[in-house]
């Protein structure tokens, strides 16, 4: 009998100290999150307020069927910073949208969308739908003459929707055309001037004799939106200045054999192959490339913008903050002069597109933000990549006050038993 009471006392003592030890250990080294809260799709936004009030020990998991909007992304990131374990999973599509002022004196907005291959994107502004794009590879581009308010892109058949812009229209700077005097430079300048560009020219007519018109003293993004170089001799002469100009954000168009200049090799999108020549010229009208062109062998980071058959006729590359285009054509002027009824306008539009694709456009302030333009990328940056929900750890979720009471009861029982036995 006595032995039993002693066993009881020892048991109470051991249990009390064990509970005390567990409480100390729990406060010093918290155990893994015990509870996981999850919300899905449209219910996510409604749960955010409740999640904010939950103890930081509660793990939060979002199941997304579309990239979250900016508010939800910001909120999830904030909960992570507040100490919650925040994870997400789901089938949000990797979309990105940018709406930038087009590099065109006539204005317009260039809308670039990145989306999975095969997707159909519907573009709209505040006034209604603009157009739709079917994505062949990585995305698509649309130039719209005007846009009212922000541009939105919606993935057809999915809940994903993006919003971008509007950005303030930029003040374009002049385009400089530089090279050997000839019809190509003259008519390129005419086409761009007719399109509304302010054009400066510097044409070489003899050694050390250049005929200049409005040409700036130096290649500088503060003075020029783009530089068109017509031949390799001029490219070699400008060399380092062109490279610096491109790296600082300027647009460079290397036309004809300009990319052959060794000094511009570091910025050229590729190397020029031999110029093709047709055995016979067309009998009547002459279109772009009908008299042959220089094919471009793409460099490692060059991108083909135009192909003729299997040959690349126009290639592009990013260099620092700028863009460089390599154009294999050296007599587009024939297109304008002899290119049929629409040749002149086609030549004008083509040159505007070429220069517009490379030109530096200072962008004004606007509502645009990366989170709105590429929400999935922003979510990955701020919350992390998609992960499955953490396993819920089942454990006693007991109030510490209850444990303290239990300890007191155990110790009291042990003390009472001892006193009843006559011990102190």
């Amino acid at each position, binding site marked *: 009998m006595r032995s039993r009471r002693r066993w009881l006392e020892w048991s109470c003592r051991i249990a009390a100290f064990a509970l005390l030890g567990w409480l100390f250990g729990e406060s010093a080294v918290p155990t893994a999150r015990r509870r996981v809260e999850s919300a899905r799709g449209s219910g996510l936004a409604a749960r955010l307020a409740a999640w904010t009030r939950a103890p930081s020990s509660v793990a939060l998991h979002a199941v997304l069927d579309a990239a979250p909007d900016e508010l939800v992304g910001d909120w999830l990131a904030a909960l992570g910073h507040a100490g919650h374990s925040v994870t997400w999973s789901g089938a949000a599509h990797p979309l990105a949208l940018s709406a930038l002022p087009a590099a065109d004196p006539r204005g317009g907005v260039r809308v670039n969308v990145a989306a999975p291959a095969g997707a159909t994107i519907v573009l709209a502004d505040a006034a209604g739908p603009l157009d739709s794009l079917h994505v062949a590879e990585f995305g698509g581009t649309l130039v719209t003459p005007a846009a009212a308010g922000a541009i939105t892109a919606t993935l057809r058949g999915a809940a994903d929707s993006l919003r971008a812009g509007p950005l303030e229209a930029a003040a374009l700077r002049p385009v400089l055309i530089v090279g050997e005097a*000839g019809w*190509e430079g003259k008519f390129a300048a005419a086409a761009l001037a007719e399109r509304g560009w302010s054009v400066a020219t510097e044409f070489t007519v003899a050694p050390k004799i250049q005929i200049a018109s409005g040409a700036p003293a130096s290649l500088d993004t503060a003075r020029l939106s783009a530089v068109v170089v017509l031949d390799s001799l001029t490219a070699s002469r400008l060399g380092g200045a062109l490279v610096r100009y491109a790296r600082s954000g300027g647009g460079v168009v290397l036309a004809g054999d300009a990319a052959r200049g060794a000094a511009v090799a570091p910025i050229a999108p590729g190397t020029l192959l031999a110029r093709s020549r047709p055995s016979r010229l067309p009998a009547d009208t002459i279109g772009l490339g009908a008299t042959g062109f220089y094919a471009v062998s793409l460099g490692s980071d060059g991108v083909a913008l135009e192909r003729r058959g299997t040959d690349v006729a126009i290639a592009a590359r990013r260099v620092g903050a700028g863009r460089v285009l390599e154009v294999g054509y050296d007599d587009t002027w024939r297109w304008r002069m002899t290119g049929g009824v629409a040749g002149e306008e086609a030549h004008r539009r083509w040159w505007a597109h070429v220069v517009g694709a490379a030109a530096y456009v200072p962008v004004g302030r606007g509502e645009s933000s990366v989170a709105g333009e590429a929400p999935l990328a922003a979510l990955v940056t701020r919350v992390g990549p998609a992960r499955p929900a953490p396993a819920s750890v089942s454990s006693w979720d007991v109030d510490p006050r209850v444990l303290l009471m239990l300890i007191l009861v155990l110790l009291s029982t042990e003390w009472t038993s001892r006193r009843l036995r006559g011990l102190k």
Partner: protein
Amino acid sequence: MTPPARGGEFVFATAQYESGDWDSAPLVPANVIDSIARYTALPVAPVGVVAALADDKMLRYPLLYLTGHLPVRFSSVERENVRRFVDRGGLLFVDDHNHDVDGVFHKTATDEIGRAVAPLAELPNDHPLYSSFFKFDGPPTTSHELNGWGDNLVHKHLLAVQRGGRIAVLYSSKDYSSEWNYHPDSKRFLSVDNTRFAVNIVVYALTA
């Protein structure tokens, strides 16, 4: 017709029209080509071509030289082609081989230009044409007008039709066709090369 030359090569083209004597100054092309090669680094085709105004291929030569003594009457096709040529940015240089403002060439050619393009107007003597390569105070005189031939006038200005600030049609009553119509080798007998103004016209056409 000779096919177009390489991309950047300048080809001197003489306009052929159905009325009149379009080939009255056959040595001018060679002489002008010689001057271009002599004074500039422009790639130039060694021989000129003849471009028929009635043929669309005339549009392959954005600088056309037209001269003659006889009446100029464009056919409807020629007139339309000249209009297209000018609209697209070509420069038509017309020189009166008679050096006579009362002559038939002047009267008919200026009339045709007015019908096909626009009426001619005096070109200021400080126009960039006169400083595009060599510096001139105005159109250089010719021995023919100084000797009192033709209309016995020294013409102070050239005439022109301008489009968007550039010369679309340049008209001369100074008879450069006679002045430049000699074999290029004979330049060595001149103290001042009288074809230098032709270089200005070509450089202006290529750069303006």
